[in-house]
């Protein structure tokens, strides 16, 4: 708890309320008081928070999997759909590699662009004001 947690609102507020307003505020505060947490409530809160933090770490460890799986799937599609030219007799055989197909097929290019867009995660990005609040202090 912060040092002034135990102070009553009317003692801590520097709003300089007239006495009648201060009495009104005290009545509102009394009528609208949250339940006092028990030690069991605090322990439950802490374990739920630990679960969330662990879940986030797991998600972070596995987040490379989705784009990688997508990339493998696209590569497979490309390989399966790549035109297999029947070599004509006497003509030199020209193998069509998946990379050739990627460069030439607009549909596949769109898929790849989609992958690269989804490759970045905003897991670590936070609203700028969180980061910038320190500069607001002084």
């Amino acid at each position: 708890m912060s040092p002034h947690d135990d102070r009553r609102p009317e003692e801590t507020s520097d709003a300089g309320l007239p006495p009648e307003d201060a009495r009104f505020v005290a009545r509102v505060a009394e009528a609208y008081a949250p339940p006092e947490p028990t030690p069991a409530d605090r322990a439950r809160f802490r374990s739920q928070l630990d679960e969330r933090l662990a879940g986030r770490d797991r998600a972070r460890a596995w987040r490379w999997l989705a784009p990688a799986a997508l990339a493998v799937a696209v590569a497979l599609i490309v390989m399966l759909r790549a035109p297999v030219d029947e070599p004509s007799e006497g003509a030199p055989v020209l193998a069509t590699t998946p990379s050739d197909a990627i460069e030439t097929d607009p549909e596949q290019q769109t898929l790849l662009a989609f992958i690269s867009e989804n490759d970045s995660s905003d897991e670590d990005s936070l609203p700028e004001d969180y980061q910038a609040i320190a500069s607001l202090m002084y």
Partner: protein
Amino acid sequence: MARAQAALVVAAAGGSNSVEVARERAFEAFVAEHRDRAVRIAWRLLGGDQAAAEDVAQEAFVRAHRALGGFRGDARLATWFHRILLNEVARYQRWRWVRQRFAGEMPADPPELDAARPGDPGLRARVARALEKLPRGQREAFVLVHLEGLTIQESALATGRALGTLKSHLHRALRALRAELADLDPRQEARRT
């Protein structure tokens, strides 16, 4: 408080295992120190919904944990965290509004009013409704300054508003609440007698 802040700032700056352990310990102390107030603030801003308040407070701690690397020691850690918490409350309210509006979800029932708790459950619900009617800025100002006892300066920093704006919000909030909850207003009481 200052010790927890210093420990967190030092720990956040490093990357080794021992620093990581120190960081986790400091974070644990930070949660223990701010948990009750965080839930209280969220509870008061979310109409007395205990489950939602705990959910929002936990999310705020998760975000604080994630953003700790970006925290600069010249800011007061509590103020920085309160700002995260207020943003989480607002985010929760936006999503609740979207779910109700577009997903056909029914508006939430009035918060669980535990009849066994001291105080008048009906009055508690009326205060919750009166606070919900206030615009966000006024509600935050009233809860932080008058109900949680933060100074106007601390509240202005936590809400990201200018001092003058915050004072104006406080004045308007008080006027609106006095009109809405006239039976709690000593002035009205004096007129009646």
